[in-house]
């Protein structure tokens, strides 16, 4: 057995490689949505929740406290946008490292890559001469082979991810959108509207995410609203306990 497989069978090596691929490509916002949508939805939800919690804590104080919340959100905006870009770049770096490693393996361990490919297609039900022909066709072109190994061995998908800066722009839109909506509750509409607007933003973000992911709409919205309500209540009662 070749050292390239580190004492494992070709198929076991493929399974291990696929796990590596999953780590490299993991969506940083915890969903399978394109990065900029998930970044926007995630950022909007969090911004609405943070503003709600700050309002709950400081609602009995003077109006300056409301401005404090929005000054805080400005800093949060920079952090959220920067974090989204940094995480996006980190993922891109992981993916590029994986593709470079795979290309190196194709160049330096061609025989072993052929064995891996054979194991992959044997597992898919190909056998005998047909299996050899399939493998020969895939091995004929290095571009095709690299794409095959990335997609089949590592389970990666090409041309799927958004640019880190586009993701960051999504986060910017999310934070700004939520902050603008919430500012009506803070400065224009009656006091209770802060809660309504926060829940509206959370519900809309959760609903959009569910819709794009083709998940069930209602449970997703209710769960997100439930978590939001719980967070606000815990903050409210903690403030009652510790700040009075």
């Amino acid at each position: 057995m070749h050292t390239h497989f580190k004492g494992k069978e070709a198929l076991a090596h493929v399974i291990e490689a696929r796990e590596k691929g999953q780590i490299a490509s993991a969506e940083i916002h915890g969903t399978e949505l394109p990065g900029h949508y998930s970044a926007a939805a995630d950022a909007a939800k969090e911004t609405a929740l943070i503003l709600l919690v700050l309002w709950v804590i400081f609602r009995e104080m003077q109006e300056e406290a409301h401005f404090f919340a929005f000054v805080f959100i400005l800093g949060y905006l920079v952090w959220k946008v920067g974090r989204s870009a940094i995480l996006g770049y980190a993922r891109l770096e992981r993916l590029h490292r994986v593709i470079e490693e795979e290309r190196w393996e194709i160049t330096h361990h061609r025989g072993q890559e052929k064995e891996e490919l054979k194991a992959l297609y044997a597992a898919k039900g190909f056998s005998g001469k047909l299996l050899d022909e399939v493998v020969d066709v895939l091995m004929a072109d290095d571009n095709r082979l690299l794409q095959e190994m990335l997609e089949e061995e590592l389970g990666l998908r090409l041309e799927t991810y958004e640019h880190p800066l586009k993701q960051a722009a999504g986060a910017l839109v999310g934070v700004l959108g939520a902050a603008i909506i919430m500012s009506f509750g803070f400065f224009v509409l009656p006091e209770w509207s802060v809660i309504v607007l926060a829940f509206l933003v959370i519900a809309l973000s959760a609903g959009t995410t569910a819709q794009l992911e083709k998940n069930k709409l209602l449970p997703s919205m209710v769960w997100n609203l439930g978590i939001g309500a719980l967070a606000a209540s815990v903050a409210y009662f903690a403030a009652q306990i510790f700040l009075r």
Partner: protein
Amino acid sequence: MKTPYLFDEFFAANLEESVSPFLTSRSRVWGKNLSLKSAASAATLLAFGFSFSFFNPPISYMCLSLVFFLVGTPALLAAMDDLRNLEINIDVLMTLAALVCVLIGSGLEGALLLVLFKLSHALEDLVSKKARSALANLNNIAPKFASLLDNDGVAFEKSVKEVDVGALLIVKQGEVIALDGIVVKGASSLNLVHLTGESFPLHKTIGDTVPAGARNLESALVIQVTRKSGDSTLTRLMQLIMQAQEAKPRLQYFIDRFGKRYATTIICLTFLFAAAIPFLFAISYFGSEGSIYRALAFLIAASPCALIIATPTAYLSALSSAARRGILLKGGITLDALNSCSMIAFDKTGTLTTGKLACVSFAPISLKPACGIDEALSIAAGLEGHVVHPIATAICALAQERKCEAIDIQDFKALPGFGLEGRVAGMSVAIGLPEHIAPHLIAGIEAKRKQGCIVAVLRIEQDFFLFQFSDPVRKETSALLEKLKDVNKLRPIMLTGDHRQSAEDVGRLVGIEEIFANLRPEDKLTKVAELSMSGGLAMVGDGVNDAPALARATVGISMGRIGSAVAVDASDVVLLNDDLHLLSWLFSKARHTRRIVKQNLCLALAVICFATMPALFGLVPLWMAVLLHEGGTVLVGLNSLRLLHKK
């Protein structure tokens, strides 16, 4: 099966995010020219910061924070990287100076320093990216897989890297030959324009050698592989370009070396002055008259801001001016290199000549042919109208010029590698190689070939007509060469892979006396290297075969329209409209740029000398040192803008 993704560009671009295969195609645009975008954003924010500094300092500071984030963070990372490698250069000095500016409350000056620094780096990046794409383009010509024949004669595809010597390749019409080999079956014409720059088709039959990279124009050929992919003609060309690019003299090396020494000296002197002044004079370490304060003022005054922009701004202005006239220069260093040239070498085909085959003579060989010359031309156009071939194009163009309509041909038949035949009003007609159409006349025709002409014979029943083709010289080339000799004091030379006779004919027409003919790509490279030893050499060419020579020459100049992508990428100057007459203007512009750069450098050094020492002795206050420093920068910038004039 879906089309495989082409990873070559991504790897050639050193895993750059703007071509990342993992990003969606629409999203890649976010990663293009990021360095330049961040420098431009930082410059805008700096302008806001400066404006707000007069009436709302907090907004100004917020803008400056963003500027420091956008351009300061990468500079800090680069400086830390340099320090980790025990290297002190201008990057480190600039970053240190910018940080010191913040510490002493001159954030605006620090930000300006960083923005200018980032801008010059972003422009450098743009230039180097273009240079990197030369090899990627050559790689695109090379087929990645080949069609092989197995023992049963069944074709199958295999990666060229896995094809061994002795394997049989089948190359269909229109395909590019993947590996060097010998023809074992079939006959066809090959176009070697990608390799040699010569657009004339070459006839190849059993026993002839064929190079990888040639395009098969007519019928299928079976080729026995003689060299593995690592040793093929294309791979050797790629190696030659790489060697030539590495061997190229670069003014940049000098600037880098100077920068490192300058930065180390200034930083050492700053620490030395800060520590030693209290021992020599009766002043303290701290306070606005203290040694640390004076040493910091010295560091800022000595920051080579004007020095750094002295050359790039001048080059940028000259480059913009050239671009407006349709000349693309790959970097300002090219302008320096142009100045050092005392010789200019031209490739013949496609450079001094048009590179397009034209029919120069059409006449009957038979004494009293039954049909007239126009009717014969119409028959020839009728036959050639069925195929795509440089000779066919030239014959059809001649027929069109003489208003001879193509005649319909019956029973048309193409004989790959030999010619075309058919019938017209019951007469048998054929056109093609003399060896096939009129073997008994070959002795008389051979003399024309020796003169460098391409020939074709038309047969109408028993009458024969001879076509002669050649590559015409570009208009007004001789006037240009006179100007290059008289005004720019350059010695013209011709380097060509063509026959000596045809090279000498062209040389006589355009006024070039020094001619080197029959040169293969490696011979051209050797000749260019040899000539470069005796002085600066500008090389003008267009074919892939010129690419190594273009890369090796002091300055490589290529033709943008007709030039091959590889030649364009391997060269330093691209004439976008193929207008050779701009060469004289370009050499004059390069001389003007050198004068401006010299003035800029003198001005920048004078400001540094004038500001640093008085700052150290406390004669020039910090704000004055900053003003002198920035004033020098502005003057240098304005002086460079003079190069924007078209003249």
